[in-house]
């Protein structure tokens, strides 16, 4: 049963081949059996899951028939879940039982999805290896000695290992797409503002966006349909009707214009990956697409700009973790300053502190113009590049990551080396564009992802291209040995 995709589960539940309770029990058992190897879960909410499954079965018995009704999923542990610990992968929130639900959690629950628990992640979503979690690193099911990517590493590992058909994630600089690529999944970062950020613990507010990770584009479409939509509680949420993501999946690709940015294929890209990307292009051509070289000249400035904007916003967003109203408080504070300094020093991990420091510096008196403002100007240059490119092509295609999954600990002592891994993904966050990573092959047994980018609000187009590609290929169906 664990091999079923969301779409297959929907059909099975509808046909009464199995109940949600049966499915939930089976997956919970599998989580108990296999997750110790992976460390994908921070919390498994068994009782709640069974209650939700029973409720879903009851709704179905009463005649309801939603696609996600009774389907098991899990949430990245930065989506607030009322009554359930929401840790953000941090010691500072280890004791934080959220007093409310994130909109995404609420929407999926209303659709009848059964949440099995909360998934491991890089602390405060800062990282691309899932090694900065207070709850320990997550292992990649394709090679337990390797990282699953991050920051939605728990989501990726759990879905790749067939502990779940789909999970929520968030993507600030690639945190859905990069782990999806490293674990042979399909992951979608929607347009900024498409999915509500209410209840999603902020890393960098102008870049953060929630989205799904699943094994197929079809499953991502099912998830996005439930997750997305206008939310009056989020000022940056966009009041625009949703497309019919499922309905558009099968549209033919005839006439699709694909842009290949020449900057994506320069030095630094693993040649094995370059080859796989080009093979995927050939496949899409067979499906009717045409290809054109384009240029995104400002891409090379994206990493510096991103590593100013994201830490600057984070340094402010994370000020609320002060040991006063919730979360970790140091023992026996001598005075107010001691309370702040020790609670935060003991509660945050190294990478989080590093980014808070960088962000604080970038915003401090005398440096604001040179750093934050300059980064925002570069942000516009990057957006302008994309706008120019999308005047000529429908989607942009390239690698999701410069290399496949690396060994645990390999880049731990070199933050800058890890930051460089984000090169292909962060431009979409800076410009706010939707992006998708899909499985496209293997390099020495390790999954390789291809990234597709589209104009604002064209998630349906991305899912359509990925789905047609997945109809013609079988990379996405490959499962890691032992799972």
């Amino acid at each position, binding site marked *: 049963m664990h091999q079923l995709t969301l779409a297959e589960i929907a059909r099975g539940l509808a046909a009464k081949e199995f109940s949600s309770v049966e499915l939930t029990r089976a997956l919970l058992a599998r989580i108990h059996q296999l997750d110790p190897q992976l460390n994908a879960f921070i919390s498994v909410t068994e009782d709640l899951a069974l209650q939700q499954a029973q409720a879903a079965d009851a709704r179905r018995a009463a005649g309801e028939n939603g696609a996600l009704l009774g389907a098991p999923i899990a949430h990245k542990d930065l989506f607030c879940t009322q009554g359930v610990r929401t840790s953000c992968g941090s010691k500072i929130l280890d*004791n*934080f*039982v959220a*007093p409310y639900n994130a909109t995404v959690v609420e929407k999926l629950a209303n659709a009848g999805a059964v949440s099995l628990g909360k998934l491991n992640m890089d602390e405060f979503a800062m990282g691309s290896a899932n090694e900065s979690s207070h709850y320990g690193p997550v292992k990649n099911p394709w090679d337990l000695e390797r990282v699953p990517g991050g920051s939605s590493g728990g989501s990726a590992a759990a879905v790749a290992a067939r502990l779940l058909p789909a999970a929520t994630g968030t993507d600030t600089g690639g945190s859905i797409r990069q782990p999806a690529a490293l674990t042979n999944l399909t992951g979608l970062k929607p*347009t*900024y503002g498409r999915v509500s950020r209410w209840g999603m613990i902020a890393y960098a507010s*102008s870049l953060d966006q929630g989205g799904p990770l699943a094994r197929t584009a079809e499953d991502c479409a099912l998830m996005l349909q439930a997750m997305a939509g206008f939310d*009056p509680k989020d*000022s*940056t949420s*966009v*009041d625009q009707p949703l497309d019919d993501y499922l309905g558009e999946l099968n549209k033919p690709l005839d006439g699709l214009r694909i842009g290949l940015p020449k900057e994506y294929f320069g030095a630094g890209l693993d040649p094995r990956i370059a080859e796989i990307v080009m093979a995927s292009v050939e496949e899409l051509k067979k499906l009717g697409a045409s290809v054109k070289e384009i240029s995104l000249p*400002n891409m090379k*400035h994206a*990493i*510096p*700009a991103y*590593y*100013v904007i994201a830490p600057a916003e984070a340094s402010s967003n994370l*000020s609320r973790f*002060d*040991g*006063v*109203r*919730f979360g*970790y*408080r140091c023992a026996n*504070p*001598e*005075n*107010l300053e001691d*309370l*702040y*300094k*020790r609670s*935060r*020093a003991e509660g*945050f991990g190294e990478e989080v502190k*590093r980014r*808070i*420091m960088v962000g*604080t*510096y970038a915003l*401090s008196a005398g440096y604001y113009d040179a*750093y934050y403002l*300059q*980064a*925002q*100007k*570069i*942000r*516009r*240059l990057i*957006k302008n590049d994309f706008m120019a490119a999308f005047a000529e092509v429908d989607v942009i295609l390239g690698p999701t990551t410069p290399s496949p999954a690396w060994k645990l600990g390999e880049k731990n002592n070199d*933050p*800058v080396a890890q*930051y460089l891994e984000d090169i292909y993904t962060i431009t979409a966050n*800076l410009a*706010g564009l939707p992006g998708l990573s899909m499985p496209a092959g293997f390099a020495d047994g390790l999954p390789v992802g291809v990234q597709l980018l589209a104009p*604002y609000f064209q998630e349906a187009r991305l899912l359509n291209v990925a789905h047609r590609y997945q109809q013609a290929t079988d990379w996405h169906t490959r499962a890691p040995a032992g799972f």
Partner: protein
Amino acid sequence: MALERSDVEKIAHLARLGLNEADLPRTTETLNNILGLIDQMQAVDTAGIEPLAHPLEATQRLRADAVSEENRRDAYQAIAPAVQDGLYLVPKVIE
């Protein structure tokens, strides 16, 4: 713009992060490495470019002025480190 130890101490104070004496040299070095990466940005000519704060450049929506919240103090304070008589407790604030 390489940071000195005193800069790092100042930043840590602004961010209210306790610093470990022993870690200071390493922290300073790592921060300087990161700033080295970031400083590549300084070479970019952005004259005449408007900063972009939000990708979609939308405008703020306004909420009707209505009370929609009820008192949930007990639930909110159940997760607080220290409360008394409905107040959050902190070490004495000196003005």
